[in-house]
């Protein structure tokens, strides 16, 4: 060994891998506490590799960036939320709107991830973190006891050493896998999100979606993905509309329709087509989502290393709640806090870093996931996906259909008939209802 190289010399206190929402929040917290932080991003700028459906809930930033809404690069404030159930020819929508979400302190917003993530990373830099872009991390550096002591990168002489490595390297997290924190990877835990961003004049969007100024609409859709289990979405940006689908990968692979064909079917649906008519594709994009919540989460702490964000499968896919960026930002913050504690105490072992686990357990990050642990499977189940939408749509159609001179049939009778017609067993309906009630109630 070269005697000039001292194994104990670190390049910095904390290396954060990945300049997404988790990584930037970890870097902000650690840098503000006075630690030396290097934030590594493989794209040419933070956010350049990142894609999602389109809505972010930044409440968790209140502490980190007070009045974030005055500066965050958002597109529109979501003041209208619709949940839509589609069959080939029918649509049932539950539509909610409130003025409250259109003013401070706001609730959710549509935003482009390259804008939002770039903005958040600028706060990490302002806090003193050193941002290195166009740098792909190729693996972990570990000492002879297996403790993580840094990373290797694709830069010349690109090894970097630190006391703590925080892996925020996204859904594929090769670092968490290399550290042995995932016991296995199962395709059934993942969905593929694909979307088209369609350009339309702002006035046209305002008129079609019934909004003004910076008000925006979030439409979540079930029953629009053909034989593939999943869901769809339509989100309004300022002068584009994002339309896309989330598809269970294992189901997608076993049938004939490709992702872009499933989007095309959704776009052609009579309830969706008028909203997006004339929209030119500005950008097509795709990303994988860790969908299974608690069922797929890895260990998030090892000696010298923490895992946060999508890398730790901290994405909430619970049907009526579809969140990810807020879980990423929170877990990143807590990882940053735990790293600060550990470095100050001089103990960066898994034991010294255990403050991360406590913070995740004490907050919405793991509490929402525990409460909703059965929801992802229920939402993507065959009955919810392929049988219930048709049954519900038929019930509503018959309720509102005037069959004079026939008198109105009772709702109970319609329900029973439509349940039987859809081939749904009563006990399955009751069981799913109970699971839903336990999760959402």
């Amino acid at each position, binding site marked *: 060994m070269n005697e000039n190289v001292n194994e104990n010399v670190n390049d910095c206190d904390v290396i954060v891998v990945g300049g997404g929402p988790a990584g930037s929040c970890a870097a902000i917290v650690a840098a503000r506490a006075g630690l030396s932080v290097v934030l590594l991003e*493989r*794209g*040419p*700028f933070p*956010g*350049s*590799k*990142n*894609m999602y459906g389109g809505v972010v809930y930044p409440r968790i930033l209140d502490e980190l960036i007070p009045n974030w809404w005055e500066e965050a*690069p958002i597109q529109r404030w979501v003041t209208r939320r619709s949940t839509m159930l589609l069959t080939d020819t029918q649509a049932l929508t539950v539509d909610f709107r409130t003025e409250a979400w259109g003013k401070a302190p706001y609730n959710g917003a549509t935003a*482009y*991830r*390259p*804008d939002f993530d*770039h903005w958040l990373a600028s706060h990490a830099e302002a806090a003193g973190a050193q941002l290195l*872009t*166009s*740098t*792909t991390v*190729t693996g972990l550096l570990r000492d002879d006891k297996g403790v993580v002591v840094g990373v290797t*990168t*694709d*830069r010349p002489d690109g090894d970097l050493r630190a006391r703590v490595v925080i892996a925020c390297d996204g*859904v*594929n997290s090769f670092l968490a896998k290399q550290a042995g924190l995932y016991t296995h*990877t199962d*395709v059934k835990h*993942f969905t*593929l999100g*694909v979307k*088209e961003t369609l350009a339309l004049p702002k006035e046209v969007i305002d008129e079609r979606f019934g909004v003004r100024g910076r008000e925006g609409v979030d439409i979540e859709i079930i029953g629009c993905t053909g034989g593939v289990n999943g869901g769809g979405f339509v989100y309004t940006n300022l002068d584009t509309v994002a339309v896309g689908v989330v598809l269970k*990968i*294992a189901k*997608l*692979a*076993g*049938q*004939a*329709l*490709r*992702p*872009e*064909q499933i989007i*095309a079917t959704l776009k052609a649906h009579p309830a969706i087509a008028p909203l997006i008519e004339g929209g030119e*594709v*500005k*950008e*097509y*994009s*795709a*990303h*994988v989502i860790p969908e299974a919540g608690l069922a797929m989460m890895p260990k998030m702490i090892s000696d010298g290393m923490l895992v946060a964000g999508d890398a730790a499968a901290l994405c909430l896919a619970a049907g009526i709640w579809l969140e990810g960026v807020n879980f990423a930002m929170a877990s990143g913050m807590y990882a940053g806090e735990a790293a600060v504690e550990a470095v100050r105490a001089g103990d960066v072992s898994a034991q010294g870093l255990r403050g991360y686990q406590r913070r995740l357990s004490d907050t919405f990050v793991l509490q929402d996931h525990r409460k909703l642990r059965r929801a992802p499977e229920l939402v993507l189940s065959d009955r919810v996906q392929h049988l219930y939408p048709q049954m519900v749509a038929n019930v509503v159609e018959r309720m509102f259909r005037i069959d004079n001179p026939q008198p109105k049939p009772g709702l109970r009778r319609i329900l029973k008939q439509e349940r039987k017609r859809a081939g749904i067993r009563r006990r399955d309906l009751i069981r799913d209802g109970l699971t839903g009630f336990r999760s959402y109630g």
Partner: protein
Amino acid sequence: MTLGNFLETMETAEFRVHPEAHIVVDGAICADCTTRECVVACPANLFVPTSAGGIVFNYEQCFECGTCYLVCTQAGAITWNYPAGGHGVVFHRT
């Protein structure tokens, strides 16, 4: 959607292509695969069956999403890495 339309759609995304492929597919292994999940699932439609019975992968317009290695059932068929720093897909800022 026709193939021509989809090729146009793919043109809307920006790719800073590195001369070296980040994902390598072993067509010989794919020749034994009967299910070919990757051909349907890749959101960029980059897995192309060949007349010789194998599969060719065009890495240039890859979203780096991971779908292909997740669905692949043939051990060793896909060697998956991220592109070199600064390369690959770049989603647009406004």
